[in-house]
């Protein structure tokens, strides 16, 4: 079974703190994603990585950075947490789409989510 593991289910941080959210996958997936989910807004992509050390901004990258030093690990960093970053954060991973023709399924596998509260 594919496993995507997020380091915390619940997190409470203070305004201005530097926050690290960690995500690890065990399926050797090329792609990894960080989304945030807010009521009425669905899932919004923060950052995407398609390889080690490679990243692309999603729709809402402001206030966030990411790190992918190893293929299995993708970290989301809130440089200076603010109350408007209180949200549910979801990590996901998938195979690269170019493998689809090889019969590989490119569905995304999600972690259980981290509910972050910034006070």
């Amino acid at each position, binding site marked *: 079974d594919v496993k*995507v593991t997020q380091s915390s289910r619940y997190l409470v941080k203070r305004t201005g703190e530097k926050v690290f959210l960690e995500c690890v996958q065990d399926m050797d997936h*090329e*792609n990894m*994603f960080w*989304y945030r989910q807010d009521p*009425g*807004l*669905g*899932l*919004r*992509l923060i950052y*995407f990585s*398609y390889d080690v050390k490679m990243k*692309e901004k*999603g*729709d809402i990258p402001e206030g966030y950075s990411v790190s992918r030093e190893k293929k299995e690990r993708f970290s989301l960093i809130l440089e200076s947490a603010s109350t408007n970053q209180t949200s*549910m954060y*979801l990590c*996901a991973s*998938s195979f*690269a*789409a*170019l493998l*689809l023709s090889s019969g590989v*399924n*490119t*569905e*995304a*596998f*999600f*972690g*259980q*989510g981290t*509910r972050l509260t910034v006070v």
Partner: protein
Amino acid sequence: SQQGEEDPQALSIQEGENATMNCSYKTSINNLQWYRQNSGRGLVHLILIRSNEREKHSGRLRVTLDTSKKSSSLLITASRAADTASYFCATDRGSRDDKIIFGKGTRLHILP
């Protein structure tokens, strides 16, 4: 953004009835996927349909794709209480762009 839009935002039906949810998207796609999310949990993949496919079945799920209208529908037949969840469509553009972009979701509530 190529974000999809699900319709309706919320749907309540009686157990045993069929549930239909729709998704529209903006740009050309490679694949369209449907996911389910139970309250407060991560998303679970349900079904993937490629841009060159028009219909796909998986158990009680039926997905259609109309690329000319940039729309898809998810039909759940003979609904059960356990189908109560939020449903999201997601699109990617394939090797041109692997990002998977989600819509806002449809909240489905199955009434006993």
